[in-house]
């Protein structure tokens, strides 16, 4: 953790970083905000709510459907997500031939 952000309702300044539990190093809010193909990482609320009112901020920033896609979707078990990824990769490979 570095300097605590100033009290406000928006994200902290870019020099403020917290440890990402998935990557294992410090990241800025701007990274978490777009981590999932432009949408926030599904852990953004968990990680940032101690530092600023992130839920309030993102509810304003995101459409209702993007909010739903980001935070109402559980992380899949590995095996299921692997099966999906295999299927997608096979499709991409076939399309590129």
């Amino acid at each position, binding site marked *: *953790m570095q300097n605590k952000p100033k009290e406000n309702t928006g994200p902290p300044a870019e020099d403020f970083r917290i*440890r*990402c*539990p*998935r*990557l*294992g*190093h*410090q*990241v800025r809010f701007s*990274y978490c905000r777009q*981590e*999932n*193909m*432009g949408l926030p*990482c*599904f*852990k953004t*609320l*968990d*990680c940032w*709510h*101690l530092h600023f009112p992130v839920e309030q901020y993102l509810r304003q920033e995101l459409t209702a459907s993007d909010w*739903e896609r980001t*935070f*109402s*979707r*559980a*992380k*899949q*078990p*590995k*095996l*299921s*997500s*692997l*099966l*999906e*990824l*295999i*299927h*997608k*990769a*096979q499709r*991409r*490979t076939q*399309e*590129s031939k």
Partner: protein
Amino acid sequence: MQRKKIVLPESEIPRQWYNIMADMPTPLEPPLHPGTGEPAGPDDLSPIFPMNLIEQEVSTKRWIDIPEEILEKYLIWRPTPLYRAYNLEKHLKTPARIYYKNEGVSPAGSHKPNTAIAQAYYNKEAGTRRITTETGAGQWGSALSMCCSFFGLECKVFMVKISYNQKPYRRLMMETWGATCTASPSTETQAGRSILEKNPDSPGSLGMAISEAVEAAVGDEYTKYSLGSVLNHVMLHQTINGLETQKQLEMAGDYPDVVIGCAGGGSNFAGNCLPFVRDKIHGKEIDIIGVEPSSCPTMSRGPFAYDFGDTVQMTPLMPMHTLGHDFVPAPIHAGGLRYHGMAPILSQLLLDKLIRAENINQLETFQAGITFARTEGFISAPECNHAVAMTIREALKAREEGKEKTILCNWSGHGLVDMAAYEAYLSGQLSDQPLPEEEITRALEAIAPLPKPRQYIG
């Protein structure tokens, strides 16, 4: 002088892994294929895993021989020492005898190479020439890189670009072990190129990196993919830990009343406890405890059900303990423990009451980690601190009850690359995030209508 370390001679290293699938009172139901809703079979996984590992994934054979080539490599750091925690016992003024199995002595600093070595070997045997994987901070990538080098395999690690740029030493570790580490998204895969077309400056993500690693395996018959957690064959390989521990406790003339491990993806907890679960199935009285965070008490509070991966409930997942598909856990620093659901094999053992779950808040875990470091010296990884905290609870309970019980703690890895989490604790920036009862109720209402596996009796 008291014996601090119980060191198993190399000649006594276990020659077989133990497969709990042979002894489970209730067989596991297979995972469902997300596309068809039918049980997933070996062929579904064959594009990315070699058949010898898929056979282990579905095997019900009780003992599986560890090939000599793997044993030779295990001997670089195995058998790992079992410690008697005299200093911690004295500090706690407990009559309990506390042992901890130190898996942090591997070159990668954790239990991860136990399966990385086996996976590299079986891939080599199956004719694989190159293994791909994804990594963030680089712990799994490092373990696999090292093990591929042992067997002359190419190792291709797709490392999230932001991590690639911020963690040069991890990348250099992988490259020192001979791996090719590529920043993801890359131009080497369709998935990567597609992302870069839309955003050339993309800093990457774990989701992108795994897509690239899987695609690289699917597109080349000599390339396979490797995963370091969750799957049955991963847990099988990890049982070398518990089997060694049993021999070491026998050397000490002791046997545990309590076995404790932190329960995340499941491989470190399973690796140590499964041989003791077998003893329990055969009549031993042992309390086997998987410890999870209070903020996400999947095992200790969630029911057993088929959960769905999306809000429109189109994607059937594996039967598991779950808090529901709209559950968002509160923040804690033990990243490895923050899974939405528990591994199916552990869920079933829990359901069969062969193991049980406890949850502990994060401040208590870090306080335990500090106590452990100041008495036994080792600095635990944040997730490992959950096991340490439970060990201390049990030791204090023994003091209150005046009982001389034996406690075994699986010390799964050191925290020397996680000091920022300790800094946050020591500077008072962490807080406890217990999950309110109403939040659990709300999450469980969402899965109430979902189908239950036939094992579910709750």
